[in-house]
């Protein structure tokens, strides 16, 4: 028992938050990488420069990013119900988390690919690489440290989103802090939940840094 609540309640909440964060981060990584690559590729100096397509993609990305997360969850309720079968529980939070965070990561990917630069694109093409080869064999591998740093930041942002989702029925530490802590006026539980979220975020940062270090350490 901690502050009059079963330890297992805390652990369940922690697990739910971790699950939401990890599962959505995996999806966000894949979707953001795809969307970010497309943004880079269709932009000026990209591999498949296409003004119209870039405009469309860019507008959609920005629009999605501008929707407050709470509103996004509400907007997605019908979609979530069809896809997951329920709107409660951690899994039901995934669509909103993924759609909310993917545009954010996509922008990070776009910037990283631009930074890696036109020089290497030219180099690849000048040796007869196809555009796909330039993207997958040169630009993405060269940007890897930046991409990992970006997904770390994104995962941390997602952890924040999970607590918002938690407060309206997704479970997890956010739910614990809100339902047991705030609603029943037990501030210590709120603090305990907050500390656990902070530890989780710290852990994500440490793991992310470790990956980056591993990727950058070459000799």
């Amino acid at each position, binding site marked *: 028992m901690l502050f009059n609540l079963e330890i297992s309640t805390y652990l369940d909440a922690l697990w739910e938050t971790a699950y939401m964060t990890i599962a959505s981060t995996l999806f966000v990584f894949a979707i953001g990488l795809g969307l970010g690559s497309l943004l880079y590729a269709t932009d000026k100096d990209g591999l498949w420069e296409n003004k119209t397509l870039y405009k469309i993609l860019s507008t959609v990305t920005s629009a999605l990013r501008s929707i407050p997360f709470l509103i996004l969850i509400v907007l997605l309720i019908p979609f979530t119900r069809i896809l997951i079968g329920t709107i409660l529980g951690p899994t039901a939070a995934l669509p909103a988390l993924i759609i909310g965070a993917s545009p954010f990561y996509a922008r990070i990917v776009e910037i990283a690919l631009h930074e890696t630069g036109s*020089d*290497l694109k*030219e180099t690849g*093409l*000048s040796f007869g690489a196809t555009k796909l080869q330039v993207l997958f064999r040169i630009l993405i591998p060269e940007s*890897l440290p930046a991409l990992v740093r970006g997904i770390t930041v994104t995962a941390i942002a997602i952890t924040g989103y999970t607590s918002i989702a938690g407060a309206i029925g997704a479970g997890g530490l956010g739910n614990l802090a809100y339902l047991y802590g705030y609603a029943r006026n037990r501030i210590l539980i709120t603090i305990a939940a907050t500390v656990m979220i902070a530890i989780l975020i710290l852990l994500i940062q440490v793991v992310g840094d470790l990956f980056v270090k591993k990727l950058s350490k070459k*000799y």
Partner: protein
Amino acid sequence: MITLENITKQYIGSKDEIALNQVSARFDSGLIHGIIGISGAGKSTLIRLLNQLESYDKGNIQIFDYTDLRHLNKESTRMLRKQIGMIFQTDHLLSRKTVLDNILLPISFHRKITSEDKKFAQDLLQEVGLSEYSTRYPEQLSGGQRQRVGIARALINKPSLLLCDEPTSALDVITTGQILQLIKATAKNHSVDVIIVTHDMYVIREICDTVTVMDKGRIVEHGDLDDILFKAKHPQTQAFVKEIGLDLSSVVQQFDPKELLLLKFDESIVKDSIISEMIQTLSVTASIVYANVTPHRIGIMVIHAPKRIDEIKLFLEKHKVVVEDVI
């Protein structure tokens, strides 16, 4: 042989500015060709047309067996590019690959890398003087060493043409000399033609056989090194030549051109004392008004001989000196 006929190129978005304006040129095989011009003259644009990193609007380019570069399909463009190695101003190496993997990269775009490829890459590394460095990463190398890796990488697909866009502009004078000599030596070993872009006349004098001078999107002079060095006509060319202390025109102006002879010596006869021998044998008077007998490839001298100029000419020619009028 590469020929360009009336090539015109304007970048999309640039209003009146024409990057290349009616450019025609010929680059013969077996030689090192230099393209010189000030910033914005169109040098990079010109060589980037050859491997179709840029397309052109009008005209025609012939290179290898390709006659109409503009209408090549994707696959042919890739094959064309495979036959053309490219070296850039900065190394453009992949920071997360080793030196050896960087060199092998161009092969990997076309097929699987074999153990022979690896051996060839290792040989190339040796050739550029970096055999010990195969497992290092680019950031562990100096600028000059990275440029050497770039040269090895450009040769890995066994190209027939090497395009170098200001390969030494980021290097110090001594390293520049070494890299230029390396380009020259490897080009010869691998029978590769070279086109080298620069804004530095020193680079041209050091290794080029022919020179193309560009200004504002046009070719203003195009010829053999000697002619450009000593008989430059265009003010832009004269300015470049002056930079390396070979400004003949100001000397020549002080004399009657009919009394002047331009002598060219190659390395084999530079040491002989031909002029004093001539003065003794023919008992003529001749004064040296200009001499530059220590440059890298050829020595030249201008003599002023008010009398018996034809006899002098004959004598010198018999002694393997190339004699020309000063124009």
